């Protein structure tokens, strides 16, 4: 039973990790929080859900949701970051809050404010017994996909030209432009990748929970921020570890301790980190 909950925690945690990675990508390159991230994640999830309801197979739903979310991310960059480069430091932050509100309200109008339930028959899964664990194909799929995505992002950042350029800009945007990197393009790419990841995470969410509401984005987005703080702002490794930790802690707490106090404890931990160890576990 304990192991079962661990598994659930890891599954949830990998979703948080994906969202947190997205926050960190933007943070690393622009030193700013994209507070519309949660809503982009939510919209990606809903688009994926819609296509799934129209009988699109799962392997196609993912790229579709990711593409849509990625494009939405570019929209965020074009409206909230690019034009505000010279404005007040907090201006993009506020703009993303505003855009997030637009997205959430739009989603509520399109899909209703109540949770949409995922069709039962979409994911036919058999379950396996792995020792004391019971694991379904769905869960395996989620873990595999999440892992692939994380490995993919890591490879993208460390192996491809665009990825290397992203790291260059994140580390030193003055010198990188001198070295011929087009900062603006790289920034757009960063948002695309960050949001595409969020879109994928969105699809994973309705695979895990079986339901989705326009407010899920806000909720999970906030919790992913907790993961980001704990793991360390700007650190990929931190996002993954922080996300996994968060997922496990959340599930364990709900299952064994004071379930209702879970959120309080999680945000309390985040506050403790900010107060005592703001750089998190792996940040600078």
């Amino acid at each position: 039973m304990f192991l079962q909950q661990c598994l659930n925690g890891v599954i949830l945690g990998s979703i948080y990790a994906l969202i947190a990675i997205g926050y960190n990508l933007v943070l690393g390159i622009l030193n700013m929080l994209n507070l519309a991230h949660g809503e982009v994640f939510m919209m990606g999830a809903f688009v994926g859900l819609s296509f799934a309801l129209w009988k699109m197979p799962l392997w196609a739903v993912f790229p579709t949701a990711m593409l849509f979310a990625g494009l939405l991310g570019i929209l965020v960059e074009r409206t909230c970051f690019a034009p505000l480069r010279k404005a007040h430091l907090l201006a993009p932050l506020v703009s993303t809050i505003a855009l997030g509100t637009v997205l959430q309200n739009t989603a509520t109008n399109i899909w209703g404010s109540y949770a949409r339930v995922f069709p039962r028959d979409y994911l036919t899964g058999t379950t396996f017994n792995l020792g004391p664990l019971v694991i379904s194909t769905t869960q395996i799929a989620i873990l595999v996909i999440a892992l692939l995505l994380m490995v993919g992002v890591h490879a993208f950042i460390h192996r491809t030209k665009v990825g290397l350029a992203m790291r260059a800009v994140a580390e030193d945007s003055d010198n990188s432009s001198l070295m011929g990197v087009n900062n603006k393009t790289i920034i757009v790419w960063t948002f695309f990748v960050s949001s595409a990841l969020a879109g994928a995470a969105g699809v994973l969410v309705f695979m895990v929970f079986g339901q989705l509401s326009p407010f899920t984005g806000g909720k999970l987005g906030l919790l992913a921020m907790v993961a980001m703080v704990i793991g360390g702002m700007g650190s990929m490794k931190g996002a993954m570890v922080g996300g996994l930790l968060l997922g496990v802690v959340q599930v364990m707490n709900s299952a064994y301790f004071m379930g209702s106090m879970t959120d309080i404890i999680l945000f309390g931990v985040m506050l403790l980190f900010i107060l005592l160890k703001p750089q998190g576990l792996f940040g600078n």
Partner: protein
Amino acid sequence: MGRKLLGYYELTILAFMGINILLGLSVYAILATNQLSVGNAGFMAIGAYISSFLTVQLNWPLEGALIVGALAAVLAGVVIGIPSLRLSGIYVVLATLGFGEMIRNFFNVYEPLGGPQGFRGAIGGTVGLIYFWVAICVLFLWLLGRSRLGLSFDAVKDDELVARTIGLPVTKIKVGAFMIGSFIAGIAGGLYAHYVSYIEPPNFDFVHSTIIILFVLLGGMETLWGAILGAAIFTILPEVTRFMKEWRLALYGAILVAIMILRPAGIIRKGDLKKWFRRKETPVRLQGEKT
């Protein structure tokens, strides 16, 4: 007696406008030192619940309960404020965000104060009382803005580092701003609770904190009048745009995104009111000074 000038409906709008003005001022006060507090609904919640508890369970007089509730909010503000201030603006956002969520969740599970069922029974709030507090807060912030201390706030907002090099105790000023903002939000919470007589945790969630930010930035983040204008617009507009009730938030959001691009400081900017009313901009007026 006399004819009623304002019907029940209008009074309710006025009441909510007053509360929104207070909330806007609470964000403004903190924003005046360049800190974005995304958790003022949390301070509001503390004020609401504590003051309600005092009047309903302990039979306190309303005034006292309001103030104690607000002071409790200040305590929370100081606890959050002090450590976050050493860090950059993003941490203030994260800390206030986390704090707001914590507070909401706390009241959601704390059964003695109703938990998810909410808390009923706080009465006595009137439109008059609300605007009494609005007047006090506006007066206070206005006087502060015109004083030397107000100039210190401006300097901190313009360039924190340089402000330090001319001897301004920046950390104290920023904590002070937090205290003012949390107090006003706490008062707003208490007044709200005693006006609507029923409060529940969803009233104080992140979306509400967000909305306050939206309308303060819309009205103008540089002056207290901007916060008031934003609150007024936000309260009245829904009534005017009844037909698009469902898209109201999207409308605000879209307007704000547009404003951030076109006129980032908001509708009312720092020198605007002086220009419009053609007064000389002086922090301290002297007798006999030639203009």
